[in-house]
């Protein structure tokens, strides 16, 4: 999974801590998500996408192969 969280967060001038507070998670969770080391729940993905004013599929991008497996 590729995530565009860092890029979208930078556009909106949000720090990791700001985003974490807005979606009610710890900052470490945002770090894990940005590194692609954690797949969020649908609810958290939706919350993050909303805060980044984007659609879920624009924030979290899956390879076609990953979806077929």
């Amino acid at each position, binding site marked *: 999974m590729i995530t565009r969280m860092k890029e979208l967060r930078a556009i909106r001038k949000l720090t990791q801590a700001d985003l974490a507070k807005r979606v009610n*998670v710890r900052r470490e969770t945002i770090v894990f998500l940005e590194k692609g*080391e954690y*797949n969020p729940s649908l609810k958290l993905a939706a919350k993050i996408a909303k805060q980044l004013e984007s659609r879920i599929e624009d924030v979290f991008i899956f390879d076609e192969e990953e979806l077929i497996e």
Partner: protein
Amino acid sequence: MKSKTALMLFSILSVSLVGGLLFQLYSLLSSDNMTSAQLLLTAATVVVMVILIPVLLNLRKDVKAGIPHDDELSKKVKMFAAGYAYFSSLIIWLVLFAFHSYLQKDDLLMVGLAFMILSFGINWLFVRRKGFQ
């Protein structure tokens, strides 16, 4: 569990644990010569205090900043760590029972419980570092 409740519970548990250790240490130290048990308990008390103080301070900082102490990822990490710790504990107990003739019942239980806690801690660190794909 809310962060404030967690902080309160954690503080009470920490004070009870450190208090208990200090009480045990005091009763052991009142005897004349220093035994290995006294040294072990002193080391345990110091280690527990060194670990607990930063954890408590961090938790307090999080509560003040309004950051949740437990979120989706930390719950998942705990769940996975508990699962791994369960299997490692089974092995540890089997090994300990194999050596039961060399140990007294009390020591066996203490060592087993200590290994269970240690195994959870190690697994927690491992899972936290590894992440989830």
